[in-house]
């Protein structure tokens, strides 16, 4: 795969926090328009890897390319331009609690478009309707349940129709029905041509959403491939993972 064909490319990325090596020489290509699911136990560096892709964390070594641009070399407005092409759904949604749900979704549009307020409001309403929250525009984040927050977070992440959507533990802390709803929304997002990078330890959820998979263990990419390839892996940790039915 050439750098231009990859939506995201990690090239020998390493990261250490104090004495703890979180990412150890990780190289990875994520093709455009596909859903890549990064699997692994808690605390193996999955979320840190996701944060590297959007430039929230800088690698100690290696490079991160997003649609061909090396974001480790970017700062300020240039980095902002790359970030505008991406959406990020945080594990706890990270909605701005001083704003209503509608204003949260409208926030990226208010910041980065010159649309009239009426159009922004209408688009925010549509984005909320797409995740089933059309009646909750004026509610405050504190009034929403965990699943609703996640859906609102997804609506905000999709506000500017990003080409890449980064998702951190979409089903964590949710009941199976709500988790399935979120998975369905992610599948719909993928169908619209958005590249998905999903970090999860929920295998059933990953099976529904993912096209391509990777297993991260102790900072290293232990396995990479399709569902079938990972199911057939000899690696004991990969086997244990792929056989698991739980998650959340």
């Amino acid at each position, binding site marked *: 795969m050439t750098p231009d064909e990859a939506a995201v490319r990690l090239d020998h990325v390493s990261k250490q926090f104090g004495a703890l090596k979180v990412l150890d020489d990780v190289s990875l290509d994520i093709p455009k328009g596909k859903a890549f699911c990064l699997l692994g136990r808690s605390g193996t560096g999955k979320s840190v890897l996701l944060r590297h892709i959007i430039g929230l964390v800088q690698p100690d070594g290696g490079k991160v390319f997003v649609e061909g641009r090396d974001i480790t070399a970017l700062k300020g407005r240039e*980095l*902002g331009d790359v970030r*505008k092409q991406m959406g990020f759904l945080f*594990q706890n949604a*990270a909605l701005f609690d001083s704003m209503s749900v509608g204003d949260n979704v409208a926030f990226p549009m208010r*910041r980065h478009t010159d649309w009239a307020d009426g159009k922004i409001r209408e688009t925010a309403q549509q984005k909320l309707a797409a995740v089933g929250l059309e009646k909750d525009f004026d509610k405050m984040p504190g009034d929403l349940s965990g699943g609703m927050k996640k859906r609102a977070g997804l609506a905000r992440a999709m506000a500017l129709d990003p080409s890449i959507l980064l998702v951190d533990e979409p089903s964590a802390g949710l009941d199976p029905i709500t988790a399935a709803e979120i998975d369905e929304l992610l599948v719909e997002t993928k169908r619209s041509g958005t590249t998905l990078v999903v970090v999860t330890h929920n295998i059933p959820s990953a099976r529904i959403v993912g096209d391509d998979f990777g297993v991260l263990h102790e900072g290293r990419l232990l396995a990479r491939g399709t569902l079938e390839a990972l199911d057939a892996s000899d690696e004991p940790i990969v086997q244990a993972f792929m056989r698991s039915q739980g998650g959340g």
Partner: protein
Amino acid sequence: MFVSGQCGNCYCSRLVIITSRIQLLSVVDRTGTSVLGLFEFVGALATFGGRAVVEAFRPPYEWREIIRHLYQFGYRSAPLVVTAGLAIGVVLSMHTRASLERFGAEAMIPAGLAIALIRETGPLTAGLLVSGRVGAGIGAEIGAMKVTEQIDALEANAVDAFKYLAVTRIIALMIAMPLLTLMMDFAGIFGGYLAEVAVSGMSWQLYFERAFGYITYSDLIPATFKTVVFGYLIAVAGSYLGFTTSRGTEGVGEASTRSVVMGSMLIILGDVILVKIIFFFYPPVSG
């Protein structure tokens, strides 16, 4: 562990000396670490404050956020400041009367009160009140945003979180502080009038003529504008502690408390330097 050298043994005496040297080294080591930590903290705080000044002049200018904070910090602090000003005016007037009566100088009560309020009591008290109300709020709000990943969410949405959260608050408080100080000054003078009218029945017109008769622009303007620096110090301390919050809700509480303590300390220390500077440019007139 061997702690006593009373046995008179030479070997034991040496052990005592070595032990006490180790203890001394340990104290030096701990003190050194604390001092270095303090320098590191002051350096980081100064860098944070300096960066805020630089970023304040760079576009985009977050007017909407600045106005929102101006409302939060200024308008919503006004009732507290005015109430405190009134009370301070009443109390100062009573104390001043008690002192000046001894010398038969009751006529100087309005002027003495106005000078004390405008030059020092108003700015410093307003600063301390705002440090308590607003400084704590800044530390807690930014700290809570840090631990709930809202700051990361801002950055992920291509927004400069430092500028959006810290710089806007610093600018807003720098604007709000002199306005709040003026409110406190005038509320205090009015409080003094209420106390005075209750005791001596002095007319409104006479009171204000006497109060403002001795006040010059060099009393009012430097003392009021020094609170711009107070606003800067309070907001920088709160924002810095908010941005460096860790350890969840416990950390948020700590950031809030430390914001008040540090903001108050900074404005008290800053006041000493600012008064010195004001006296350099506007030497106090005697007689």
